[in-house]
């Protein structure tokens, strides 16, 4: 258990700035997920924390100690890789004990710790096997075990579930959460999978272009995305975006669609006082739209529905609004006519409004 503090970190590869003056304070025992698209710098950040990359500027502190130039083994970290990275010519036991042997831990202590890790991860029957004889899920357990035996303060996960099939991924995800609760270790987890991010994290750091765009609880990230990028990246299917202008009259704010239709935004909490005529983007999540019931305070969007996509528990209805694709999530038993033109209801308090050019939340 340790705090991790990243201060003004910069990493350059040649002329390419991969991380730009990045700050991140992680509390003791916290589960932080770094979420972002490929190439956003999340894996680079993790490798830097692990000590596998030289930083260009800034500092990394782990457990109150400046470890910026420490060797990976002296940082009190364990790392789990997407490709498992098990040592192919060693048995599971050999894989688990390699780090302890390197640290010259006495033999009986090694045996004790390997046995304990194997028990926690339920891989006791596999100890004598080679990695090639294990399934993907078993391999990833062994990889986690390799960090576990070393009693590290900080666990680093680099997309650990991406190589597993959907069912195993769900299983291991739950197990990881359980493991975090049992151990109480600080964990930093890199993924591009938003479900993993939202389910596992205490706080999610959404990254793009080498900077952290938003660092907040999963709920906050989902409910109040700080930028259009975060809003679009988190949530599936993606948030619906409608471009238009803000309209303010008699102190009441509204959103003006391109065709002149006014959408009442009473109830929306603006970050900055709304300016009349400002170009903006209205964002509404598919699951925040209701086609049947109009709740008190709800506003109306005129939507043309074109296609119904049943998904079991619920269905997606695809349509069009102001020339853009618009999707609505409805109950799996509900029925809608397609094609048809309907009124879609949403609560302005749940919606998001972004500046059209900067993408910042208004």
């Amino acid at each position, binding site marked *: 258990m340790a705090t991790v503090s990243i201060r003004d970190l910069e990493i350059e590869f040649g002329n390419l700035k991969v991380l730009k003056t990045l700050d991140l304070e992680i509390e003791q025992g916290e589960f932080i997920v770094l979420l972002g698209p490929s190439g956003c710098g999340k894996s680079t950040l993790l490798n830097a924390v692990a*000590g596998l990359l030289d930083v260009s500027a800034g500092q990394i502190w782990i457990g109150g100690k400046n470890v910026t130039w420490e060797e990976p*083994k002296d940082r009190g*970290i*364990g*790392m789990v*890789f997407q*490709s498992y990275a098990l*040592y192919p010519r060693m048995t599971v036991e050999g894989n688990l004990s390699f780090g302890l042997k390197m640290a010259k831990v006495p033999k009986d202590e090694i045996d004790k710790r390997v046995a304990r890790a194997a028990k926690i991860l339920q891989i006791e029957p596999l100890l004598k096997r080679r990695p090639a004889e294990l399934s993907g899920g078993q391999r990833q357990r062994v*990889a986690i075990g*390799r960090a576990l035996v070393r009693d590290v303060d900080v666990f680093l996960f680099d997309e650990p579930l991406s190589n597993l099939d959907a069912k195993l991924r769900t299983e291991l995800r739950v197990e990881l959460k359980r493991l975090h609760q049992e151990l109480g270790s600080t964990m930093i987890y890199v993924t591009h999978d938003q479900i993993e991010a939202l389910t596992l994290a205490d706080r999610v750091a959404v990254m793009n272009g080498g900077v952290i765009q938003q660092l907040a609880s999963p709920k906050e990230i989902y409910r109040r995305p700080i930028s259009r990028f975060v809003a679009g990246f988190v949530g599936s299917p993606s948030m619906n975006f409608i471009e238009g202008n803000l309209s303010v009259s008699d102190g009441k704010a509204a959103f003006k669609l391109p065709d002149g239709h006014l959408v009442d935004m009473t109830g929306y909490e603006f970050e900055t006082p709304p300016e009349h005529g400002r170009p903006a983007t209205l964002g509404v999540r598919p699951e925040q739209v209701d086609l049947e019931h109009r709740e008190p305070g709800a506003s109306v969007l005129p939507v043309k529905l074109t296609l119904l996509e049943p998904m079991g528990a619920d269905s997606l209805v695809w349509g069009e609004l102001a020339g853009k694709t618009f999707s609505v999530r409805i109950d799996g038993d509900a029925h809608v006519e397609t094609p048809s033109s309907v009124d879609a209801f949403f609560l302005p308090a749940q919606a998001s409004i972004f500046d059209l050019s900067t993408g910042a939340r208004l």
Partner: protein
Amino acid sequence: MASLTANGHIEPSGPRPKRIGPGRYGVYAFLIISALFFLIPLYVMIVTSLKPMDEIRLGNLFALPGSPSFDAWVKAWSQACTGLNCNGIHVGMLNSIKILVPSVLLSIAVGSVTGYALSFWRPKGANILFAVLLLGAFIPYQVFLYPLVRILSMVSLYNSIPGVVFVHTIFGLPLMTLLFRNFYAGIPIDLFKAARVDGGGFWAIFIRLMLPLSTPIIVVAAILQITGIWNDFLFGLIFAGRENFPMTVQLNNVVNSSFGEKEYNVNMAATILTALVPLFVYFVSGRWFVRGIASGAVKG
């Protein structure tokens, strides 16, 4: 199209594809003829080595020996004259082994460590170093000969087995490094990262993790080095010294000794004896060799 048989299973219909067609026969015929063509010199050598000189003088190159005898082989092995000594080429064979074993071990050891360092640790200037190393491989040997002679005599290694081993190791370095670097480039970098997080240092990761994975490429490297160093003539002649001439140099002395009649049977026997080691290596390891080269090509 499928048709139902009596027991209800669906059977494939239509004629079975023929396993061996006329095209195949043509390919085999071509391969057999090529093989025979390339085996002719070997046949002539073996046949000649088993004939006495009287029979050879008749000039029937392809005729089988009338009374085969191994006299020429015995003479080549233990009595043929190489310059002034008439101890046969077995002296050269011992010298060749004394040069070969340490040269092969040393060049593979140095090349594998260099390749490992270049592909995983990437010290500053690694790429420049590698480029220079490769460039060195393309410069004709002859350019280096005189400076090397001077250097070796300065450190008193000239005309000695350690001297020629040193030269073989240096000249093997570019190829060995290239081979191992490309092989290690095919090993996932995560494996190396995991070992570093686990506290492995330069040597621990190399010896415990990388070497056990390197068997295929070590075999390829060994084959290349064994055949290359065994067949070497130039370095042996220049750097080994009169006492330590390898088999190839001795063979040349046997074949080119200029007094009396040319003993073709002895020459042939001596040549085959000299070629035995690389021949043996190819026969035993041909499969490994192709596999190693192919895997390097795909992964590297």
